[in-house]
């Protein structure tokens, strides 16, 4: 929560010193990282990172690579959209990855086909009940309900027991992972219906991610919900004094984050055609990292969906770039760690600079 400080008055405000939108810095970082890969690729690999170099394909850019860049961050990106709202309102959500695991298991068990190649589905969970070949809306709604319920518990714990969000969502992280393992006694759940499998097919995750990003950008910018998200992250006490029901808002924010995690779980299990108890491990940290790299302040009150989308793209570019340079995956994680810390340090410096200005 921000503290209120009084200046001594008489300070003059100079509009020319107004900082440019922080999203631009993230964008420049993205462009810079792409340029570095392009340059290193040209010099050491004799190949282009960004542009098409294959003779048999007639496009300017290497479209395959561009698609992979965004596809591989779409699912964690969907989670990051929810996490962004939680962090802007001054909270944190560590449970998203586990919610993905639990939701994927539960949703998938309602999406199974009865017969596989003429034999009964060997992985069927609800064979005895005959709950198979259900219309796709059933697993989707069940999955979303799981996410909403988990989010509601998170939100209620944070808002009404006043325990720190870190602890509340840490509890949910452990519990939801337990549920994911318990649901099918650790067995993977497979063989979804064609309709369910279509949800995450091909570039569908990207389409879903981008549409949700646009939707939540509009919501955060133009609605009361968005305004109050920033307000609560900025000065919770002031919001309370202004008559805003902070508790109800917090529950809603965590429910939306839970819903987005559930949606990510549905897309992921559909894309992989299977659900496993270990799905989504560490996704919460990737999602938080995307938001933080995108300029969302962990102190609350600052950040945007655009920033988070750019943060996700930086993630995607780095993973693709390392693959392109044929570097081990170990280096990816090391560099990812460095970038997360660097992003927060830069944010701190920017805040200090602004306070002096």
């Amino acid at each position, binding site marked *: 929560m921000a503290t*209120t400080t009084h200046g001594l008055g*008489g300070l003059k405000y100079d509009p020319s010193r107004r900082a440019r939108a922080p999203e631009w810095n993230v964008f420049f970082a993205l462009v810079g990282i792409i340029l570095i890969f392009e340059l290193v690729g040209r010099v050491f690999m004799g190949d282009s990172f960004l542009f098409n170099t294959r003779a048999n394909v007639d496009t300017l850019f290497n479209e395959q690579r561009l698609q992979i860049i965004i596809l591989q961050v779409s699912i964690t990106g969907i989670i990051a959209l929810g996490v962004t709202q939680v962090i802007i309102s001054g909270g944190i959500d560590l449970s998203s990855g586990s919610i993905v695991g639990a939701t994927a298991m539960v949703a998938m068990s309602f999406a199974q086909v009865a017969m596989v190649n003429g034999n009964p589905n060997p992985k069927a969970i609800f064979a005895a009940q005959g709950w198979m070949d259900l219309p796709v809306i059933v697993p989707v709604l069940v999955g979303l309900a799981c996410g909403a319920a988990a989010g509601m518990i998170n939100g209620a714990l944070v808002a009404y027991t006043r325990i720190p969000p870190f602890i509340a969502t840490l509890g949910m992280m452990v519990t939801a992972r337990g549920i994911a393992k318990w649901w099918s006694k650790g067995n993977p759940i497979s063989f979804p219906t064609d309709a369910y499998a279509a949800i995450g097919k091909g570039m569908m995750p990207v389409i879903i991610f981008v549409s949700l990003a646009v939707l939540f950008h509009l919501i955060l910018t133009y*609605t009361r919900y968005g305004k109050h998200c920033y307000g609560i992250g*900025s*000065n919770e006490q002031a919001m309370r*004094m202004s008559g*805003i029901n902070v508790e109800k808002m917090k529950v809603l924010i965590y429910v939306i984050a839970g819903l987005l995690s559930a949606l990510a779980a549905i897309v992921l299990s559909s894309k992989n055609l299977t659900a496993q108890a270990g799905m989504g491990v560490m996704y919460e940290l990737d999602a938080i990292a995307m938001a933080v790299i995108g300029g969302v302040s962990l102190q609350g009150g600052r950040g945007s969906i655009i920033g988070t989308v750019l943060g996700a793209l930086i993630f995607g570019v780095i993973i693709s770039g390392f693959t392109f340079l044929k570097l081990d995956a170990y280096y990816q994680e090391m560099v990812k760690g460095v970038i997360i810390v660097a992003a927060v340090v830069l944010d701190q410096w920017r805040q200090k600079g602004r306070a002096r200005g």
Partner: protein
Amino acid sequence: MSDIILETRGLSKRYGGVHALEDANFTLRAGEHVAVVGDNGAGKSTFVRQVTAVEQRSAGQVFFDGKEVNFTGPLEAREAGIETVFQTLALADDLDVPSNLFLGRELYKFRMGPFSILDRKAMRDRTLEALKTTAVKIPNVDNPIRNMSGGQRQCVSIARTAAFASKLVIMDEPTAALGVQETAQVENIIRGLKERGIPMILISHNLRQVFDLVDRIVVFRRGRIVASLNKHETDGNDIVSYITGVKGAETADA
């Protein structure tokens, strides 16, 4: 007695064993501007917090606008018509000026529960209007107020109060952190409220300001009201002797 806007009877507040406010009998008439003065810890802010229901009183009654009231929170007090500038300003630093002015009472284009779409243009226009009537100069209202000076932030908070003022305005040390020019601006806003006939309770340490602005001065000491003086029947030395306890050992009614 319809011209009494606010009346408290036996208003008391205890924090554990500490009697922060005891048996405060206070009345405010329509259009009247009253200053509340006293040393630090004399109970001034505590008094305001009970009236605006930021805290719940331990004992006593509050009458507002002719009716006994039991506000459960500051929102109810505000909805009843009590606008307050708190010492902590109650501003959200990361929001711009219009958002802060309309915090909790946003204007909408389209209502859909929490996802109601804000009418940003209308809020911006009305903000500029409100700032114009209060003569507060803010170069760019679209910037988050984090980047503004203490004086400008204070002015946003006061402009909010003045713009929505209806039945009663309470200001808790509105000029404590301000420079000379900004103090003058705030004082002009207060004179504007007087002209509009809106009653006010002003908490201030600045006796020059108090004598300039208000009709009556109420002195708090050690949680009690020790004097209520018409400004034309007293002077600075008199007030100071009440504040310090040289005069007025008995509880007085205000």
